[in-house]
Each structure stands twice: as structure tokens, then as C-alpha cells.
């Protein structure tokens, strides 16, 4: 993990002082609501349905156990004993008091954490693969690059007030687990034929009102140029992005209007002035940062652990958990474990302070004191010895984190929706729960295989509904809550947006509708075919026919 030096610490400490002063001036009436809003948003502070909401940055989803304990302490002291992990790999508190936020920031700063740029029209927290550094299919570790981007973007003076928020995701593995194709900038760390490290750069993806998959504007950018090239992209966007209409202000609209080729040419022209300038990364800096992400002190293990293999053979429940929640590690004898934050009946991504403390303990005992957050809103212990998996499983079960549903239909991505969010058209959490309750048979869930359900309470798409295999979107029809369903979306390589199947449904019908979709899938599936493949093969018509026929039958 990256460890702050005196410079990093001072920047975060001075931020606390600055925000304390801003909050004081707002409360004293020296800053108006309009002035304070952008300032507080750049510190992750929203004013929400019930209370302020504070979003704390977890850079590229990496946490240490001491940080997790402080997060738990904050939930206990300043909130209602729980917190919410988000699809941006961050954590949110739903009930802090505005007056307390400076103190919360001060506590965060003691463990090298902050809320800088977790909202607002600036460069947001950079996200990455939750298995970065340990994935068996990793080509190049993306984390040093994420950290370099974090530093570059922190209080970047030129890009402090962009036309709109700006999100960057980085991936370095064969499979893209960071949704790079639907970010403002997606980066793939790659190496060229000569073995040099560089980046493939994608721009103009994004969800929200006008969802789009990004376009590659550069196949190979040599590594030392990452930040100067970003400066060029952001400068073009800052100057030419639309500011007259907030729904057309994202970089995706600019890229589309200009065409990706013309946008790329504009960036190259700008970059011609910036390349080889002072922001050109030095080998010393790349090495300094990369040194924070070297492998922990792994034991040298020959191969798979015999006890682990035996238990898998003997205990079906354990085997099921391993199949879903354990991910193949690049080191022999190790594994990455996903702790599911999706048991039925708990809002997806929520964890209590006691649970956070327990995860910190698990991390200390089994995973070098580190934890990660996935954009699917789960937690990961990345470096567990296979010989410890049985113990981890037992403890995770006791904590309620061992639901063996990762990647399955009940591992739902879900925004806070109408229960918390003032922008919502509809609730999300009760829909997730109704679906989870409908599919409570683990064997059946297992048989269905991989299905992503993503739920957003409005067009803003915080729950990534466009890229869910099944997407659910809350819509408002004359003041009541309805839900639109789409099929066939996906993140990763070949990312695409789901197709809307037709008119929307009432809340009470949603579990049935999902049930019907699954019936059509099951009836048409060939062998072990995946849900997505069936949707691709059949198109959406058979699903439509079944659902709306039934609806009509009900009058």
C-alpha cells in the first residue's frame, strides 16, 4: 500500500484546516449556499434526504486495517453505526452532522485518509481492479499508476472546476474488472512488442442520462507521458466541454460531437506542447511509487494446499463458497477472498461498525492487514493462504459475509435510491431485497450461473444499470415509482449497454418480472450457457413476449 510521506501528510492536514474554515464561514453566513456547495462537494459532502452525506475516498479501493478501524470508529461516533461502500470503491456515511465533518476529516487524516474530490466537477477518485497485484490474469500491476494519477489529480489547479465530474479507471489484466470502457478516461496498462510499459487510452465512456461506451484515442502511450497526456485531455475538455447544459457537459458528449478521431487529434496537438515537459514522469518517481506495491512477505508454497483441496471435496457448502467467493491468485498456495456484502435483507454495500472492525481483524490475521473494496460493493481479502481458507470461511460466516453469491443474481449492485438520495425517482433497496428473497434457493442460484443485476433509482445511473446483464432503472410516472428493465448490458471488454424491454413495472411486480426473465432463460438455455449468451442468441423479444403477455393476462 502507498504510505504517505511528510509531503502527502501535510497536504491532507492542510486540507482539514481549509475545510474547517470553509465550514465555519458557511455556518457564520460568510459563504452563501451557492458558494459553499461546490466547495463542500469537492470534499464529498452532499446534502441529502435525511442529513448530509459524506463520501470518503478509498483510492483505487485499497484500505489498511488501521484505516478500517478508524472508519468504523467514525460510523460509531458520528453516524448510526454503519457505512455504505459504493460503486466508486469509496465509503459513504449517511447521517453525519455538518458541524462534525471537519472533525471527521481530522480523524481520517490520522490514518492517511481524506474526502478530497469524492464529488463535484473535478477529477474523482481513480478506480481499479479489486484484484490488482494479485490476479492470476494480471499483465501489469495498475496500482502505482493509480497512485500517480491520484497525486496528479489532487487539487489540480487547472482542473478544479471542470464542466462536469471526471472519472478515471485503470486496469492491467486480461479481464477488465474496472469498467474502463464506461469511464471518462479508461486506461489499460499494457506492454508493447519491445516490452516497454505504456497505456492504451480510452475516452468518452460514461453512464448517466446519455450512456456511452468510450473510444480508444491512443493505442500506446509510453509510460513516462501518462500525466502530461492527461493534462492535454483535460485541458481540451476544460476548454471545450459544454457548460451551458449540465446533461451535455460530460466529456463523452464532446468526444461524440467532435468524433473520437478529431478529439484525439486535438489532444495530440495540445500534448505536443506539453510532452517532455516537467510533468514527464521520472524513472525515480515511478520506482518510488511502485516500491509501495511490491508483494507482501508471502510464504513460498509449492502449490495447492492439500487440506484446502480435501475440504473442498468433502464439504459442499465450503466448495460452493470457494467456487463463488474465492479468486485465483497469481502466487501458488494463495487465494483472494471476496466477503459478500450482499446477504439478503441488508442494503447492498452496507456494513456495521462492528463488522468493519471484524474485517480489520480478519485482514490482520489472514491478509497482511489489507482490505480492498470492489466496485460491485464487496470487500476483498487479497492475500489469504489456501490453508487458512477454512478458518476465514468460518469467521466470515459468523460475520454474515460468507454468502456464496459473488457474480450471481443476488450479488446486486444497487444505489441508495429513494431511501436516502434526494435525486431518486424510485427506491432501489427494496427492489434488491425482493429479488434476493425470491431467489433464496442457493442451489438454483448456482445453477443459473453468472448474472449481474444492477439497480439505479434514477437516470444518474449510480447503480450502473446500463451495464447490468439485467438493468433496473427507477422512473417517475406522474409522481409514482416505476421500474424500467433492460437486458444484455455488460462492463469489461466488449462493454455494451442493455436494451430496454418495454414499458415499466410497479414495485410489487419487480420480483415476478425478474422471475419471468429467469424462466425464459432457463427454458432456452443450452447446457451451461450463460445468461448473457442466451440473451445475445435470442435477443430480447422472447423475454418481452413472456413478460408482457403475462401482464396482459392479468389485465
Amino acid at each position, binding site marked *: 500500500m502507498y504510505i504517505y*510521506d511528510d*509531503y502527502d501528510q*501535510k*497536504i491532507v492536514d*492542510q*486540507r482539514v*484546516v*481549509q475545510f474547517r474554515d*470553509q465550514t465555519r464561514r458557511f455556518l457564520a453566513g*460568510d*459563504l452563501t449556499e451557492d*458558494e459553499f456547495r*461546490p*466547495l463542500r462537494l469537492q470534499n464529498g459532502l452532499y446534502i441529502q434526504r435525511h442529513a448530509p452525506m459524506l463520501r470518503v475516498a478509498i483510492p483505487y479501493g485499497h484500505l489498511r486495517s488501521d484505516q478500517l478501524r478508524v472508519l468504523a470508529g467514525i460510523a460509531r461516533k458520528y453516524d448510526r453505526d454503519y457505512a455504505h461502500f459504493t460503486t466508486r470503491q469509496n465509503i459513504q456515511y449517511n447521517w453525519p452532522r455538518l458541524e462534525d465533518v471537519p472533525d471527521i476529516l481530522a480523524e481520517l487524516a490520522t490514518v492517511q485518509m481524506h474526502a478530497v474530490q469524492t464529488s463535484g*466537477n473535478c477529477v474523482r477518485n481513480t478506480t481499479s481492479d479489486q484484484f490488482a497485484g494479485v490476479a492470476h490474469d494480471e499483465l501489469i500491476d495498475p496500482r502505482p499508476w493509480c497512485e500517480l494519477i491520484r*497525486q*496528479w489529480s*489532487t*487539487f*489540480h*489547479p*487547472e*482542473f*478544479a*472546476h*471542470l464542466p462536469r465530474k471526471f472519472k478515471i479507471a485503470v486496469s492491467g489484466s486480461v479481464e477488465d474488472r474496472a469498467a474502463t470502457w464506461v469511464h471518462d478516461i479508461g486506461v489499460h496498462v499494457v506492454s508493447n512488442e519491445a516490452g516497454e510499459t505504456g497505456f492504451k487510452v480510452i475516452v468518452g465512456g460514461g453512464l448517466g442520462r446519455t450512456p456511452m461506451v468510450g473510444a480508444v484515442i491512443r493505442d500506446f502511450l509510453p509510460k513516462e507521458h501518462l*500525466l502530461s497526456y492527461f493534462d492535454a485531455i483535460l*485541458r481540451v475538455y*476544460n*476548454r471545450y466541454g459544454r*457548460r451551458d447544459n449540465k446533461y451535455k457537459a460530460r466529456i463523452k458528449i464532446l468526444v461524440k460531437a467532435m468524433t473520437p478521431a478529431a478529439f484525439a487529434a486535438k489532444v495530440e496537438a495540445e500534448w505536443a*506542447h506539453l510532452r517532455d*515537459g*516537467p*510533468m514527464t*514522469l*521520472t524513472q*525515480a*518517481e515511478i520506482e*518510488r511509487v511502485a516500491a509501495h506495491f511490491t508483494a507482501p512477505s508471502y510464504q513460498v508454497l509449492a502449490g495447492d494446499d492439500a487440506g484446502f483441496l480435501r475440504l473442498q471435496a468433502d464439504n459442499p457448502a465450503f466448495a460452493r463458497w470457494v467456487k463463488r467467493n474465492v479468486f485465483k491468485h497469481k502466487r501458488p498456495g494463495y487465494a483472494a477472498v471476496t466477503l459478500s456484502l450482499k446477504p439478503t435483507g441488508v442494503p447492498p454495500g452496507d456494513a456495521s461498525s462492528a463488522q468493519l472492525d471484524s474485517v480489520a481483524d480478519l485482514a490482520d490475521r489472514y491478509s497482511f492487514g489489507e482490505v480492498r473494496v470492489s466496485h460491485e460493493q464487496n470487500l476483498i481479502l487479497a492475500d489469504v493462504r489456501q490453508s487458512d481458507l477454512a478458518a476465514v470461511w468460518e469467521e466470515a460466516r459468523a460475520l454474515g459475509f460468507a454468502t456464496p453469491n459473488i457474480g450471481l443474481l443476488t450479488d446486486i449492485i444497487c444505489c441508495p435510491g429513494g431511501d436516502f438520495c434526494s435525486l431518486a425517482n424510485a427506491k432501489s433497496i427494496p427492489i434488491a431485497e425482493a429479488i434476493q428473497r425470491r431467489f433464496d434457493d442457493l442451489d438454483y442460484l448456482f445453477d443459473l450461473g453468472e448474472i449481474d443485476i444492477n439497480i439505479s433509482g434514477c437516470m444518474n445511473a449510480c447503480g450502473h444499470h446500463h451495464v447490468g446483464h439485467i438493468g433496473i432503472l427507477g422512473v417517475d410516472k406522474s409522481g409514482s415509482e416505476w421500474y424500467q428493465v433492460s437486458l444484455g448490458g455488460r462492463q469489461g471488454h466488449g462493454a455494451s449497454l442493455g436494451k430496454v424491454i418495454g414499458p415499466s413495472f410497479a414495485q410489487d411486480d419487480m420480483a415476478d418480472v425478474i422471475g419471468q426473465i429467469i424462466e425464459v432463460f432457463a427454458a432456452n438455455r443450452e447446457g451451461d450457457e450463460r445468461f448473457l449468451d442466451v440473451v445475445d442468441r435470442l435477443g430480447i423479444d422472447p423475454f418481452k413476449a413472456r413478460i408482457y403477455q403475462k401482464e396482459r393476462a392479468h389485465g
Partner: protein
Amino acid sequence: MGKSPHLIRLDRASGRREIVANHWLRVAEASDDAVPPHTLLPLSEWLARRDELLERTDVGVWFKPDDEPESLGDDARRLSVIAVDFPAFTDGRGFSIGRLLRERYGYAGELRAVGDVFKDTMLYLRRCGFDAFEVRIDKDVEDAAKGLDDFDEFYQNGVDQPLPLFRRRSA
């Protein structure tokens, strides 16, 4: 538009700042007559009368957020005052204008931020090359100047600190 009493001027070398009277008049459009001394013209007007005004050191230019520094180009070197308007502090285009004037077109005179300028925008402005700040008339100017000191260290390069932290860190 017109004069503002609240001009903070920053000496970029020493970091000293003082609150000074403003001698320049920013006009929305000029008449066809001769341009009086200490006038800040909109960029478009200046460009239209460039040949007539190029030798004048007592005429300056002001930019709107969508004005292009490219159209002034190296002529920037001849001017002694340029202002950039921030109609709303959340419109960050002026930051890019500042950097381009300083870093690409070699502008060395006074670079003034005008409009929605107050304590919380000062430091970003300074980092993008501004050295004069016309603080909003309803804001405490002494307090605003303190905004220049919110941070001592910056990760990226800027006009005020041309070396990013990573080039100084290792030193």
C-alpha cells in the same frame, strides 16, 4: 465593470502581497475614438484594432471564458495587463487561459482575475499564473488574501511552481 477598490497584487518572486488601488478601467466595448490610457479592452476589440494598438503599453486586454489565448498568441508578450473574467467561480476555463498565456505565449505582465473571485479560488488562480486578484466587492479582501496560503505543497506543476513535487521530492 469599471474600477474596483479591491485589488490584491502578488509579487510572484517574493510572495509578498499588497492591497492596491486599481488604475485600469475594464470596458465592455470601446467607442471608435482613441482608446484612453489604462483601458482594458475585450479581446475581440483588441484584435480588431491590433495594428493601431500594438505599440501601446497602456492598453490591456480582458478575456471572456471562451476567448482563445491562441488568437492573441505571442502578442501577449507586448501587453502589460491582461484580465480574465470568471463570471462564476465554478467556470474553470479561465484557469486554462491563465496557464496558456503564461506558459505558452510568454506573457510576463500582470495577470488579473476578475469576476467571482474570493478566498476559496485564490490559490488555484495563483497556481495558474494570476498575480492580481480583483476580489468581489462584498467579500473581505484581507481574508481573501489568506486563501493564497491554504497549502504549502502541490503535487503537480503550476505557473507558480514549475516543478511537480516528484521532481523536488527526490532532491
